[in-house]
């Protein structure tokens, strides 16, 4: 099969997959239906403060698996739904930031700086339209980069990286994620170390399950979904509830938010914001392609870069950044949205999840089976490589979600202001129970809820101590792969204890792992 055959096979796997229903005589496949459903669900959760894509992905994964089962035909519908959620929540996240000065996610914090002043000036609708246009533009740009670069990067990886190099690459990625994410490199390293430690409990190759304290619940290892969802979702819910609890204790009441504003996006506005979108899309895509850096830094850099540009170029009657400039919204939203597609480059080409949403895609692939994200996916063989067809199917679902985003996404996004009316002190506990129930139905064991509670408490403590949970999660996900690759590399090199330094590429990766830690610590020390 040629590359074109594979692309066509991927498109057909999505469009002509199992039929859900017929619309005006045209069959609509289950995968397309799931992308649409995921997209709208994503906008709803993105627009609801306290929810967001991580919670939505965590809750939907067990439901989807129970519906579609554990066979390869489930991959595209399940992952299509998850991609729909990722795309939808990316645009939906700007809604509470603009209307209610409440960033739904950390990366939409910068959107509040200009979005909320626009709302107070009666331009809420215009601000939402700017956010939508910028977000979708950035997202589409990064998707195109993903389609172009992921296969070529994977081919390079497959050609030049053997087992020692792959082991060194995982170590480099872990150290990179640990020290770059969050404010403190030492805390990031600690989080990654904890993630590694917990994933090794109860696993191993010996008869005796290591570090299990002879407890039957630990003998089979800690379930990955319980640990990941516990730290990320349950920890965040506890943290949000605690903020409300303090607000109630200090102010005597939890302040409800209100909505106002109107406005349209004109062609002249698009021309004014286009340079800011372009800059931020490039910044966001470049940052997104590096594992673990995430959309918050992209949003910050995009906003800072846009702000510097705005000071040189702004007309005298235009507001400054931070005082209701629509260019500020455009710079932030284009940057944080362009991370989304680019974040999948390390997942699909290296098998290394770069952010939490990507972690759930890896979890879905791992749970269902039949698709192992990594360089092996992009083998253009003459006989059909089913994983490559799935990869191009995933790209097709992204294109469908982008088309939805350009056409109906904006309208639906602007309707979502209503979600803010559900008080968070009721909504979040419901999400907490839904999370526990979703974990339980996966493995039907109360131990799942127990693990989620334990890791939720750990996640809460990490958040309160300023330790990012992301290095923990990525380390937990990559820990077993790191160990098995190292074991294979050790055997393959004939028991060479210096296998991590057996080639110049591996040496370069290991030197990079140490250098990134040293440089980041020195820079943070210089800036404090």
């Amino acid at each position, binding site marked *: 099969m040629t590359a074109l055959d594979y692309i066509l096979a991927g498109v057909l796997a999505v469009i002509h997959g199992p039929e859900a229903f017929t619309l005006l005589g045209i069959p609509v496949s289950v995968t397309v239906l799931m992308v649409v459903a995921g997209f709208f669900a994503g906008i709803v959760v993105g627009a609801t403060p306290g929810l967001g894509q991580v919670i939505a992905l965590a809750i939907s994964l067990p439901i989807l698996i129970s519906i579609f089962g554990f066979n390869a035909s489930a991959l595209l519908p399940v992952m299509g739904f998850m991609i729909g959620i990722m795309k939808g929540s990316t645009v939906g996240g700007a809604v509470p930031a603009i209307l209610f000065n409440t960033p739904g996610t950390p990366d939409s914090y910068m959107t509040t700086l200009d979005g909320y002043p626009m709302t107070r000036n009666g331009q809420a609708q215009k601000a939402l339209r700017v956010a939508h246009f910028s977000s979708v533009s950035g997202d589409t740009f990064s998707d195109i980069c993903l389609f172009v670069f992921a296969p070529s990067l994977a081919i390079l990886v497959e050609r030049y990286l053997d087992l020692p190099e792959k082991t060194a690459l995982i170590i480099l990625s872990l150290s990179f994620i640990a020290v770059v994410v969050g404010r403190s490199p030492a805390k990031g390293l600690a989080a990654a170390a904890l993630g590694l430690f917990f994933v090794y409990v109860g696993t191993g190759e010996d008869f005796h399950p290591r570090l299990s304290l002879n407890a039957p619940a630990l003998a089979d290892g800690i379930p990955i979904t319980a640990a990941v969802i516990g730290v990320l979702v349950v920890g965040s819910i506890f943290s949000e509830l605690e903020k409300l609890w303090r607000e109630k204790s200090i102010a005597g009441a939890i302040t409800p938010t209100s909505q106002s504003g109107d406005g349209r996006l004109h062609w002249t506005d698009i021309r004014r914001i286009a340079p800011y979108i372009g800059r931020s899309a490039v910044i966001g895509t470049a940052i997104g392609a590096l594992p673990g850096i995430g959309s918050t830094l992209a949003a910050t850099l995009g906003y800072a870069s846009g702000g510097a540009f705005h000071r040189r170029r702004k007309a005298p009657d235009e507001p400054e950044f931070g005082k209701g400039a629509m260019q500020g919204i455009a710079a932030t939203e284009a940057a944080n949205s362009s991370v989304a597609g680019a974040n999948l480059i390390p997942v699909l080409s290296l098998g290394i999840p770069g952010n939490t949403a990507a972690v759930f895609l890896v979890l879905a692939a791992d749970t269902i089976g039949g698709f192992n994200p990594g360089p092996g996916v992009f083998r253009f063989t003459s006989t059909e490589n089913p994983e490559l067809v799935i990869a191009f199917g995933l790209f097709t679902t992204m294109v469908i979600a982008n088309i939805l985003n350009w056409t109906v996404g904006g309208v639906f996004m602007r309707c979502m202001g209503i979600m803010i009316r559900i008080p968070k002190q009721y909504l979040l506990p419901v999400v907490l129970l839904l999370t526990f129930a979703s974990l339980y139905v996966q493995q039907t064991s109360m131990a799942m809820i127990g693990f989620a509670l334990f890791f939720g408490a750990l996640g809460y403590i990490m958040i309160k101590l300023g330790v990012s949970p992301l290095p923990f999660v990525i380390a937990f996900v990559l820990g077993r792969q790191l*160990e098995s690759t190292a074991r294979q590399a050790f055997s393959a090199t004939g028991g060479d204890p210096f296998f991590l330094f057996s080639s110049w590429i591996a040496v370069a990766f290991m030197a990079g792992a140490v250098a990134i830690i040293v440089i980041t610590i020195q820079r943070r020390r210089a800036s404090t």
Partner: protein
Amino acid sequence: MRRIHPDTALAVILLAFAALVLVFWLPADTDTGLYEIKRGKFTIGDALAPAFAGTVMAIAGLLLLFGSKARDAPKLDTGHVKFLSAMIAIVLAGMVLMRWAGPAATMLFADDDYRLLRDTVPWKYLGFSSGGFVIVAGASSVVEGRFSRGAALAGVVAVLFIIALYDLPFEDLLLPPNGDV
């Protein structure tokens, strides 16, 4: 008395935990060491990966201990501990109810064992309904500082919504605790 910086406290905890893992836990709770010899060949033992994790943890602790300390470093206060304790207590109470409300009710009011009735309405919902209600209404009440009608309503709606989501459409999905009993 001079207060300990939060990063110093965290560093001490990390170093202590790393020492516990590396010196006591790992040697006592793994069958093989850092490496072993199988059929004349060196292979990586089960202790190496956790030892690597423990070493990274110790390095992180040392970096925190001797690194620069920000004045506004986040720290845990009594409010955090109180709130987290309340949440853990509520979820544990909910879990106990989930696990035992159904079997207790069948012991008191039914002729059969819960195991035989766990796919029968209303028995199969007793544990999840009571435990789920306690978790949702309890968490809302802690935040509001009182038990309110809103909290009770949220508890009821959550339980009904999740039953409608998981149990009604899917025959093979089990709500807590019906897979355990």
